């Protein structure tokens, strides 16, 4: 056979093989994590958009099951146990607000995530009180999502204490802004590859080393040149919202697995996912941009008289404590929970207000 018919057949074969590879990867993802395109087909996606709250939340009251991870959600769409409808007089509600690190990427079961571990430590320390630690972390959340989550979902829970671990999701926004530079061009709408295609994502993620250069890239952004005003404003917006409601809060800076004092190869290996999601920064740039964001977080929290836990300095880096660049491993989650617990003890946070001058406005 030759000619157009053979070419058509090879294209069909190529498409077929591609679909087989994609199907196998989706199946693998379904078996391991309980999340794949099959969920979309059965309307059982891991995440669902809550129209009233205008928030992306986990599928409520579900057990999203895979061999590598089981995510159990409550009726609010959080990776947390169900809360009693009425809050008892001596009950304490502690909310851990954040993004994927709080939600528990790289932790196989709810019992291994930071909020559960913290609750275990608190239960042990205060055996005569009911303490609920609510996990209010959703993967992909930026600061604005977290503020909305706080105002729409957390405030009605009447929390006694808020612990804020914001994560680094807002940083990828700098890279997106750069790629939209040619706004004056009027293109017709373009088809994009479906975002659920795992084969392309898997290849791209696992081949980052091929695109890692020894020299500085031309298109990287100098962290000194980025405008942090928006980030500062978003931090302020959440801090003032919490302060306005007079809810005590402990603000944690964000930790990462790669440290500048590690050998270069180790830093490159540990920072792979961070460089994948923030492709406009090189390694040195990422260190700088992470530090600058942590500095703002700490500085603004102190301006509002909220205590700060310097997690970036306290959590050791490396594979032992992290599953990738910024998400905690099981051991890391426990370590972080213990750090928070000790800080709360030191501050006598559960015996009285965390900020003695809580009402004081900056």
């Amino acid at each position: 056979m030759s000619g157009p018919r053979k070419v058509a057949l090879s294209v069909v074969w190529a498409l077929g093989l591609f679909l087989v590879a994609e199907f196998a990867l989706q199946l693998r993802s379904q078996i391991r994590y309980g999340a794949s395109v099959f969920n979309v087909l059965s309307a059982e996606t891991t995440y669902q958009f809550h129209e009233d709250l205008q928030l992306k939340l986990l599928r409520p009251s579900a057990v999203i099951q895979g061999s590598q991870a089981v995510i159990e959600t409550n009726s609010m769409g959080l990776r947390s146990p169900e809360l009693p409808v009425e809050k008892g007089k001596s009950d304490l509600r502690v909310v851990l607000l954040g993004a994927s690190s709080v939600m528990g990427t790289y932790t196989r079961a709810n019992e291994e995530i930071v909020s559960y571990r913290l609750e275990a430590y608190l239960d042990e320390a205060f055996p005569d009180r009911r303490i609920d630690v609510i996990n209010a972390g959703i993967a992909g959340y930026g600061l604005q999502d977290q503020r909305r989550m706080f105002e729409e979902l957390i405030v009605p829970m009447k929390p006694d204490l808020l612990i804020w671990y914001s994560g680094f999701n807002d940083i990828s926004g700098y890279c997106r802004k750069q790629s939209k530079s040619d706004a004056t061009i009027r293109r017709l709408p373009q088809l994009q590859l479906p975002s659920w295609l795992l084969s392309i994502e898997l290849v791209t993620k696992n081949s980052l080393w091929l695109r890692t250069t020894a020299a500085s890239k031309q298109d990287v952004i100098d962290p000194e040149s980025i405008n942090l005003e928006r980030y500062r404003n978003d931090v302020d917006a959440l801090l003032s919202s919490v302060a306005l409601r007079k809810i005590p809060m402990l603000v944690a800076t964000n930790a990462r697995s790669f440290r500048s004092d590690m050998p270069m190869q180790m830093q490159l290996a540990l920072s792979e996912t961070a460089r994948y999601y923030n492709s406009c920064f090189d390694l040195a740039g990422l260190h700088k941009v992470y530090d600058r964001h942590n500095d703002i977080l700490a500085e603004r929290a102190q301006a509002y008289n909220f205590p700060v836990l310097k997690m970036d300095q306290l959590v050791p880096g490396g594979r032992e404590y992290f599953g990738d660049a910024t998400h905690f491993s099981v051991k890391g989650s426990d370590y972080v929970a213990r750090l928070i617990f000790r800080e709360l003890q030191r501050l006598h946070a559960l015996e009285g207000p965390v900020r003695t001058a809580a009402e004081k406005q900056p």
Partner: protein
Amino acid sequence: MSFQSFHFLVFFLITLVLIRTWLWKRPEAKKNVLLFASYYFYMCWDWRFLGLIVGITLINYVIGPKIAGATSSRAKKGWLGLSLGASLGILAYFKYANFFIDSMNVLLSGFGVEGQLPLLNVLLPVGISFYTFQSISYTLDIYRQRTEPVSSLRDFALFVAFFPQLVAGPIVRASHFLPQLQGEHKEEGNAMETGFALIIRGFVKKVAIADVLALHIVDPAFANPSDYSPLFLLIGIYAYSYQVYMDFSGYTDIARGVARTLGYELQINFNRPYKAISVSDFWQRWHISMSSFFRDYLYFGLGGSKYGNVYRNLLLTFVAIGVWHGAGWNFVAYGFCHGGFVCFERWRRGRRQAAGLREPHYRGVGLALQIFLIFNVIAFTRLLFRGGSLEGAVNYGHAMLDFSNTVFPVDVVGLVVLLVAVVFHYTPDSWTYDWKKVYCKLPSMVQGGLIVTLVFLLVAVSSGQAPFIYFQF
């Protein structure tokens, strides 16, 4: 719509299936669909520029028969002047207006004239240099009685806008392409397969070689030359030469492959340019459709080697080639340098002939040294091209002389790909035909597997959809 985009893949497959199935035996409907597809392709870049390409098409379509029908030489020249004036005027407005205004401002301020002329806020339409030249080649060919006016506006519009070569060539001549539209082209039996083989080769050149060289060596070197050692900067210059060749010849391969699968043949644009043994030889191997355009329509028009001063004609032609690439004094200097080298080679050839000496015939080590020498001439003059400006080129040159700097951040991936590019370029020509034959003989299942493997490989090494370098021209 870049060739590397998912949108292009869908667009191409739909067009191909339509053309190869129910439109294959309906040539008129096929051309209608191809014209619609070509305009859609162009609008995907920026829909506002559709009017521009349609305008240029109409101007030259209307003027073509006027030239052919004019009874006097003066009338012919008048119509041709109108075609050139209108087409080149549009090109000049979009591409060169700001360059002239900027140069004028510098000149005026040199004379102490206060105030600045404001720059125009215009976007450069993608591919404008290519389709403008293609259009005027039609009226020029009619003027020189090399081709007849085409009666069908649709055929002429498709000749100007044919999407595989619309934005970066090859610059197709009316006498070559219009007969194909009128059904005078008989395709080979395995045209579809060799077309796909060309597309695959083009993607490998672009994504796996050109973009990787840019990411690992060229972009860092040219972004901050003062940060790096002379050796790294030297490798940067060599790597750029291979990047620009793989990028542009990769585009040409894809364009030719796509055209071939649709049933049309575009001309070869490259012939192992870094095997050239002189600068003149290089220009017969590099971007052949453009250099032959300037040779036929400008150099010969100026008198070539028969009338007037041949050196002046050569210099003017090469400066025009330089300026065709972009609006900037660096491009003028680039053309002037190459023109100067070609003039020198011509002068030396004349002297040898006058002295009764034959042309040198290079062999073995001598041939290798001559090729290396000419490659260096080409590579170093491209500093003017890649430097972005005269100042950028000078800064790069200065940094190359700073021997105190020892920073040499070449990684394995960059070096391996540069080596592959060199080997790829210097393999015997026959190998190209051999691998196409091997590909065509593979069973369709293996071909399909190869395509999927290549797609994943290209995704792995790809650093995003870097645009083709020649799109800016």
